[in-house]
């Protein structure tokens, strides 16, 4: 479905990504782990074009994504951010219906109906007319996920979706992600939640210094790590 080919990203001094190759297939649930600064967030941001790669390609359904179809491509690849990034001046309803209506994917009524259904399914329908400032972190993140779902994307990218949350709110977000996964959504998640990764992922990727070091099933990565770097990383987060 989506292929990352030889992706390299250099910032002024640092090499954030170094010839990364990755195949994402339909129904994959990939969790990317690694020490901070290893390039995992940059990889996600390159995939949906928030960063322009220094070299390499993103190939989606056999087509190389060039600048001019970036916006169309992004409708199909949703992104959830660590800091939620809800639109502060808009209500929950406006936040989630803005894009599909303005992009003419849905009419206003259709969008509203879909918003109602989705909000109901996460039990946040009573908050439909609230502004983001009146929501808890967990609520904000769940609304942000719903906002991405409104476009019926093929792939959802999650950039540390629970890192900014208070501990008691982490589960509600992870539960929603699991629920979406059960419906067959293709997901790529950058996360520090190892227990979640173990039960959720179909594939786990360990990155360090801009490279994919190890890739495999959760069992392979967490219980039978091959390389020294992964072993060290796992030991560090266990202790």
């Amino acid at each position, binding site marked *: 479905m989506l292929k990352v080919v030889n992706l390299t990203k250099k910032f002024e001094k640092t090499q954030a990504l170094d010839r990364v190759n990755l195949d994402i297939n339909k129904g994959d649930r990939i969790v990317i782990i690694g020490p901070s600064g290893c390039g995992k967030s940059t990889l996600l941001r390159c995939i*949906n*074009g*928030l960063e322009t790669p220094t070299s390499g390609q993103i190939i989606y359904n056999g087509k190389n994504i060039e600048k001019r179809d970036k*916006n*169309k*491509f*992004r*409708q*199909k*690849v*949703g*992104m959830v*951010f660590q*800091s939620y*990034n*809800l*639109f*502060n*001046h808009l209500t929950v309803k406006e936040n989630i219906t*803005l*894009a599909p209506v*303005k*992009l003419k994917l849905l009419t206003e009524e259709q969008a509203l109906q879909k918003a109602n259904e989705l909000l109901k399914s996460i039990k946040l329908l009573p908050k439909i007319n609230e502004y983001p400032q009146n929501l808890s972190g967990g609520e904000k993140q769940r609304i*942000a996920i719903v*906002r*991405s779902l409104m*476009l019926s994307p093929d792939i959802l990218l999650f950039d540390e979706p629970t890192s900014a949350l208070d501990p008691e709110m982490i589960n509600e977000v992870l539960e929603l992600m699991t629920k979406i996964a059960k419906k067959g959504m293709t997901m790529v998640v950058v996360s520090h939640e190892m227990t979640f990764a173990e039960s959720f992922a179909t594939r786990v990727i360990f990155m360090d210094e801009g490279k994919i070091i190890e890739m495999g099933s959760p069992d392979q990565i967490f219980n039978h790590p091959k390389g020294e770097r992964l072993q060290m990383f796992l030991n560090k987060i266990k202790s």
Partner: protein
Amino acid sequence: MDNLYRTIIYDQRYLLILDGLKNTLIITIGATILGVIIGLIIALIKNNYKENKKYKFLNILANLYVTVIRGTPALLQLMIIYYIIFKTSTINILFIGILAFGINSGAYVSEIFRTGIESIDKGQMEAGKSLGLSYSQIMRYIILPQAIKNAMPALGNEFVTLIKETSVAGYIGIRDLTKAGDIIASRTYDYFLPLIITAIIYLTLTLGITKLLKKFERRNNNA
């Protein structure tokens, strides 16, 4: 008492003051509207260049405009527009005033908008992009509504500043409030009262409007 009578009542001189006040307000309001339009366009050109590297030439022009306007006196700009650009035309002099002060104000307003836009967390732009919205849609529906709200207090200050700045309009023969005071003084041969009265009117205006803006701001913040 006699002085006060001669300054305000005699020969219906209060009409001069009222007319001056009217002209001052017309120029200020007109220039503010023009300044906001110019300022918004300039700020958008600059932001578009910064975000998308588009319209480099327009960006250079925009920078040149802001640099020249902010680096030269408003009075000089007014004189250049009146004596050079509209030298032979019979265009309404108030219109020239609005144009000159509007062009002047636009440079300052563009900086107000630029700061307003840059004060918006970059996550807002990224969230818009990640939903597949185009740059112009993101600006229109997400960034500008928030940026303009943040810029309102500074825009209010700019309006108050303009009220005072337009006092040099008399230089090209516009009968604004300051000029009215000046005319009355030259007829009564007494500068004290006319100028003090003019000053009090300015002060009332600026204080009143500042207070009004503060009230408006508070209500906005509560919403």
